[in-house]
């Protein structure tokens, strides 16, 4: 197909898209004018029904908990898929020691400013991640957000050190176990509701005092489990990517270039 035919095809398709787009825009509610009753109902009910002050987390982990279970397994499946694709294959050998640079190039050492700032950030990041997970029902945040914050900790260590320090603080097996515990725990939390004679994923833990950390029942439990799953999953993903691009080399490949 030559350039002209492609352009013609694009113009026809583009015109069609434009027509449908304008038509679709016409049916949208005005900017900043929320029409439906669902959000207003949730906003006025979460504090009384679930003792949670963050309506978003209450929707994610309680009212729509089943949808989030699906999302969590999407994440689980994609991490497992990436892990499978990036696995060590038969003709791969491990390079030892993995150097994080090209052989023919002298990389300036990481500056002291970056190292000090990075190392000073490690603990605050862990604390902030745990805070975000455990206060999901009170303030913006929750399992997913806290999980990704926690998972950024090894990256900071990589930034102020090298691959070896990253490898030192992470464990593939532990991260996988954490991820599996989080994903499986979520599904099991739903089954426990059934054991109490309730519907799947119904809140079965006492709701507690609004505003307390230990409040809003299963929302906190599911938030913690999601945090485990997300943090574990992301670390597994990063480990596979790092290993594949820095450590594994094909046996017939010359070990040259950035490693």
């Amino acid at each position, binding site marked *: 197909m030559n350039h002209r035919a492609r352009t013609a095809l694009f113009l026809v398709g583009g015109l069609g898209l434009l027509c449908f787009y304008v038509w679709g825009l016409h049916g949208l509610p005005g900017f900043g004018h929320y029409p439906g009753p669902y959000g207003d109902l949730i906003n006025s009910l979460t504090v009384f029904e679930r003792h949670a002050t963050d309506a978003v987390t209450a929707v994610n982990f309680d009212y729509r908990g089943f949808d989030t279970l699906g999302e969590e397994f999407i994440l689980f499946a994609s991490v497992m898929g990436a892990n499978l694709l990036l696995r060590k294959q038969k003709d791969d050998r491990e390079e030892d020691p993995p150097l994080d640079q090209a052989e023919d190039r002298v990389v300036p050492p990481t500056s002291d400013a970056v190292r000090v700032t990075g190392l000073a950030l490690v603990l605050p990041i862990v604390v902030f991640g745990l805070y975000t997970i455990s206060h999901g029902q009170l303030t913006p945040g929750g399992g997913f957000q806290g999980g*990704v914050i926690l998972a950024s900790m090894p990256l900071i260590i990589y930034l102020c050190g090298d691959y070896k320090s990253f490898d030192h603080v992470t464990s593939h097996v532990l991260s996988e176990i954490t991820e599996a515990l989080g994903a499986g725990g979520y599904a099991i939390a739903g089954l426990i509701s059934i054991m109490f004679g309730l519907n799947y994923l119904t809140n079965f833990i006492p709701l507690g005092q609004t505003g307390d950390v230990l409040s809003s029942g299963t929302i906190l439990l599911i938030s913690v489990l999601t945090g485990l799953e997300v943090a574990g999953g992301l670390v597994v993903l990063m480990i596979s990517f790092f290993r594949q691009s820095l450590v594994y080399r094909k046996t017939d*490949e*010359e070990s040259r*270039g*950035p490693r």
Partner: protein
Amino acid sequence: MIVLQAGILLFVGVVGTAVVFTRNPLNQVIGLTFYGLLMALMFFIFQAPDVAFSQIVIGAVVLPLMVLLTLAKLKVKEQSRK
């Protein structure tokens, strides 16, 4: 507030287009990082701080890192083929 919202939307649009039109993957990743941070700012301005949290880490750190590592791997393959 409306000025801020319109401004960040415009900015995200411009930077997004710039990322698409950058042809060199390495330069594109750096643009993508900036785009990720802008998206986080946009979520924050549109009162979705929880989405902004995850966007900062996913969009500005993890995604560019994966692309960078993939580029490094590809470069090794390319060099060994020569």
